């Protein structure tokens, strides 16, 4: 009798069994991949950072350097194991030609170095320390991935000729997140190039014990040593290297959680409708005193079989696909030494999925206990308590078509039943809308203003050169006479010491100039206007613990001066730590200055850029759109792809779940459908009733999903965006697509699925379901 109940169940429900198995396989594959990737990433990263002996502490510094003082500091500090200063020769991208391509459009700071002697080695693709000969050039790995050049190409750097001898892995600057890229040349070649660019120093330390890093950082800062540039620690290097693949792993984990959830819903629907089919039998079995646990076991066995086959399939797939996903890690970091463990962890991950599925099946089977013997025998189906919507009566309804009325009424009376479907639809519309709004937002023009970039066309950077102030004036003179330029402003960045509450001092980069010419968006307050006002980037405001209206003390020309914080803005430039003020100051060294300009005819930007480039070779001149594209382009593109993928995934989920749900409903409502037919309702009447049910649920789902997307989704997206340095995030919505096109697509998906899922209703025979 037990086995008759299960009977040819798997055969009978081929479709649903297969779908469930596919989902189990997908979940298993994703979890296994995530595990394999994690192990490989951490392994490869460890190998890379160990082999290349990444510095524990790095201070970049442009300007003069006092070797003796640094050496004596290193010798005296008991934590220091090794110490070195490496030169990084910054050369403008336009002077670097690799094979056919020049790096003129590169937003990276491209520089040249020689191989280190003690640590921070540059490695070849086999993980060995590169020994570079004269005339050879080793190129950062990212240019290989971007297909800029290949081994054997001729390279011309500021007129000097090289041969691309290979590619290098740089544990410091590998990551796309790192703004600089190191090329490797021989000592002799380096000497010849030395005066072709500006030199930056990398002051590097290896500590005896990494845990003393915090202590060492404080000691270095307190010693007031060279610090004209950013500081990077070992942990940050590690994070930057891991970030992009780490994000991928996070996304995979997120998607696998989603797939597991869908698997659960599939299982729930299948089991519940199976129980619905067997309601009478189960009731009878209970009535004659058979054990529930025996019945449960049969169902459980079936799912053990499905889940096991699915898991094995998923594992196979993950082995098949891992190569593709590991490509990036292998390219940037090399092989992991512990990759054999990875598969073990993959299996553990899969077992976890398997276990949770069986646990869930067991949980759903608890419903058996709830089957009432009396109801099962008397009515043959479960009797839900109809609740609510009492006043929504047919005899008072003149508004809705009767079929539509019946659909809506059913949803209103059986709220609990429809809740699962509603939840799925809410999640689906959420998943459709959020990535899309995110994409619209970050690709909109106004978004760059959130990022601290005003609405200008051309940007001239004057940095890493001497006499910045004179050079700036020279360019300004030209610009002020240029009729093609409709508006411009010069901004100079200087370092000032800011007094902290605890008496310590901290360096603050302040951008001085006219901030009203090209306004940016302030997340709070406004731009500085008075001499005693200052605006802080949100990261700085956080770190300095300042709010709008707070006072901050800067040391200017030896004197302490009080400023009030006039506003806070998001900034992605210069690591997000900037400040803006309008006071005049002639003292401190200028770190860099920029001139930003707007053209009366924006199509002329590229011409203007080449014109100014030819006149002012020392300046870096860029098209802002290009700057934005290079900085965000890949992010915008991946969000765009993700948003399309999200639409596809949600629609598939919607169709699938609606299909399963409708099948469940039809099984449950067999008697009612037969009664309707007996009373003279046609097949299409019944179809319309079911369509009204799903469209009604869908409308609620879309409304809730959209509301959630614009509140919770905005918050979530804001959290992601703030990692780029922007806050006060507001969605830019494309109403046509978000409020019309996407809902329409979902309506179509749901209607198609409803028609498909309810096709069985036509086959329901009156005579088989009404006992005469």
């Amino acid at each position, binding site marked *: 009798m037990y086995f008759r109940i299960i009977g040819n169940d798997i055969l009978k429900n081929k479709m649903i069994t297969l779908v469930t198995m596919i989902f189990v396989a997908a979940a298993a594959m994703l979890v296994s991949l995530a595990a394999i990737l994690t192990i490989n990433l951490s392994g490869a990263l460890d190998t890379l950072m160990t082999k290349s002996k990444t510095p524990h502490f790095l201070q970049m510094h442009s300007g003069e350097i006092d070797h003796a003082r640094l050496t004596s500091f290193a010798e005296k500090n008991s934590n220091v194991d090794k110490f070195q200063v490496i030169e990084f020769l910054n050369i403008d991208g336009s002077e670097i030609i690799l094979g056919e391509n020049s790096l003129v459009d590169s937003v990276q700071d491209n520089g040249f170095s020689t191989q280190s002697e003690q640590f921070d080695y540059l490695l070849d693709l086999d993980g060995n320390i590169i020994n570079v000969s004269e005339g050879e050039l080793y190129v950062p790995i990212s240019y290989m991935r971007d297909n800029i050049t290949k081994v054997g190409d001729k390279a011309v750097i500021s007129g000097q000729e090289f041969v691309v001898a290979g590619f290098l892995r740089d544990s410091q600057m590998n990551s796309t997140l790192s703004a600089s890229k190191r090329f490797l040349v021989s000592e002799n070649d380096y000497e010849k190039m030395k005066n072709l660019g500006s030199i930056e120093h990398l002051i590097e330390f290896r500590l005896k014990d990494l845990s003393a890093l915090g202590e060492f950082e404080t000691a270095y800062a307190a010693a007031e040593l060279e610090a004209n540039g950013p500081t990077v620690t070992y942990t940050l290097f590690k994070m930057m290297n891991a970030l992009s693949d780490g994000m991928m792993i996070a996304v995979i984990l997120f998607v696998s959680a989603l797939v597991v959830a869908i698997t659960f819903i599939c299982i729930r629907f299948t089991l519940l409708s199976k129980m619905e089919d067997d309601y009478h039998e189960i009731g009878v079995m209970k009535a004659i005193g058979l054990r529930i646990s025996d019945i449960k076991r049969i169902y459980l066995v079936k799912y053990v079989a499905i889940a096991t086959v699915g898991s094995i399939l998923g594992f196979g797939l993950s082995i098949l696909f891992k190569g593709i996903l590991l490509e990036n890690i292998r390219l940037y970091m090399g092989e992991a030494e512990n990759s054999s463990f990875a598969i073990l962890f993959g299996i553990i991950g899969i077992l976890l999925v398997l276990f949770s599925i069986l646990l869930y099946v067991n949980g759903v089977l608890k419903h058996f206990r709830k089957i009432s013997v009396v109801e099962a025998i008397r009515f043959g189906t479960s*009797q839900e308590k109809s609740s609510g919507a009492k006043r929504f009566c047919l*005899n008072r309804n003149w508004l809705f078509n009767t079929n539509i009325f019946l659909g809506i009424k059913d949803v209103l009376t059986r709220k609990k039943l429809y809740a699962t479907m509603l939840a799925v639809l809410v999640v689906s519309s959420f998943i459709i809308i959020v990535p899309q709004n995110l994409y619209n937002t970050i690709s909109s023009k106004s978004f760059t203003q959130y990022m601290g970039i005003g609405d200008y066309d051309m940007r001239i950077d004057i940095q890493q050169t001497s006499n910045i102030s004179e050079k700036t004036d020279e360019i300004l003179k030209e610009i002020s006479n240029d009729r093609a330029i409709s508006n411009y402003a010069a901004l100079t960045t200087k370092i000032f010491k800011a007094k902290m509450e605890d008496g310590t001092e901290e360096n603050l980069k302040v951008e001085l100039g006219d901030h009203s010419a090209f306004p940016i968006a302030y997340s709070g307050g406004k731009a500085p206007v008075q001499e005693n006002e200052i605006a802080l980037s949100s990261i700085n405001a956080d770190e300095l613990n300042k709010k709008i209206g707070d006072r901050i003390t800067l040391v200017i020309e030896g004197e302490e001066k009080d400023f009030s914080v006039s506003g806070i803005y998001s900034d992605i430039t210069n690591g997000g730590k900037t400040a803006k003020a309008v006071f005049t100051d002639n003292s401190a060294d200028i770190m860099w200055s920029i001139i930003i300009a707007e053209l009366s005819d924006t199509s002329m930007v590229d011409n203007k850029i080449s014109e100014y480039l030819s006149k002012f070779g020392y300046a870096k001149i860029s098209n802002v759109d290009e700057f934005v594209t290079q900085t965000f382009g890949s992010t915008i593109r991946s969000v765009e792809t993700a948003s399309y993928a999200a639409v596809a995934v949600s629609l598939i989920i919607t169709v699938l779940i609606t299909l399963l749900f409708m099948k469940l409903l039809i099984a449950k409502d067999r008697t009612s459908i037969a*009664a309707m037919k007996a009373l003279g309702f046609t097949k299409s009447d019944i179809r319309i009733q079911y369509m009204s049910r799903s469209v009604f649920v869908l409308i609620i789902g879309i409304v809730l999903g959209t509301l959630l997307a614009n509140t919770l989704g905005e918050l979530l997206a804001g959290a992601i965006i703030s990692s780029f340095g922007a806050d006060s995030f507001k969605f830019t919505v494309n109403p046509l697509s978000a409020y019309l096109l996407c809902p329409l697509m979902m309506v179509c998906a749901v209607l198609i699925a409803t028609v498909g899922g309810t096709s069985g209703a036509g086959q329901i025979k*009156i005579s088989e379901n009404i006992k*005469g």
Partner: protein
Amino acid sequence: MKKIIIGDRITKSFGEREEQRNVLDELSIEINEGEFVAIMGASGSGKSTLMFALSGMDEVNSGKVVFGDRDLSAMGENELSDIRRTKMGFVFQQPIMLKNLNIIDNIILPMMRDNRKNVASISDKARALMKRVGIGELEEHDITQVSGGQLQRAGICRALINNPKIIFGDEPTGALNSKSAQEIMNIFSEINEEGTTVLLVTHDAKVAARTERVMFMRDGKIVSELKLSKYDGTNMDTRIEKVTRKMIELGI
């Protein structure tokens, strides 16, 4: 006399190949307009199957069913639905009602599909019918809140709401006690008096004795027929005896 339903050598079978057997075996039957007829037979003799066949709810394997002047066996599903909805009424042994509608909504449901605009007059008619069968006070009740007899009365109201030409009753009193059964039969008699054809299926001699013609089924065929006079409230005992004797004679 005008025929309302003609079944001409209808055959209906279930099952596949070897297991196949004819539940209806070249059965022929004719019902006159305005008649009050009962079909009797042992349990499993195919009475319900015959009802489903005559009302177009189930197709037959061979033979022909004519309703009025239209051949049901040649019609599509939608046309059959239309006829059921507008010209026929059904009362089942178990009153089959939609669980999420209250009593009056269940009653007006068949009419509302096509005449939504007249909801007020349809509801009034439903209330009048309910009062007439003695459940006037139950209109807003849920179907789970009333007794089996009351539900069966509501089922009759639903069958009458569209002024059908014919009412089919498949053991309409089968689940009721004898007092309720008598009351229900009174209602059927009244309806018939007003001109509606009534075709009942039953295995209860007391029920059959209320009609004017009783047909007996066995082995998928109508094997015999008993004509009675129109019931006028008298001679009930002799009528029952006639039916019972015939049943014993046929071994039903």
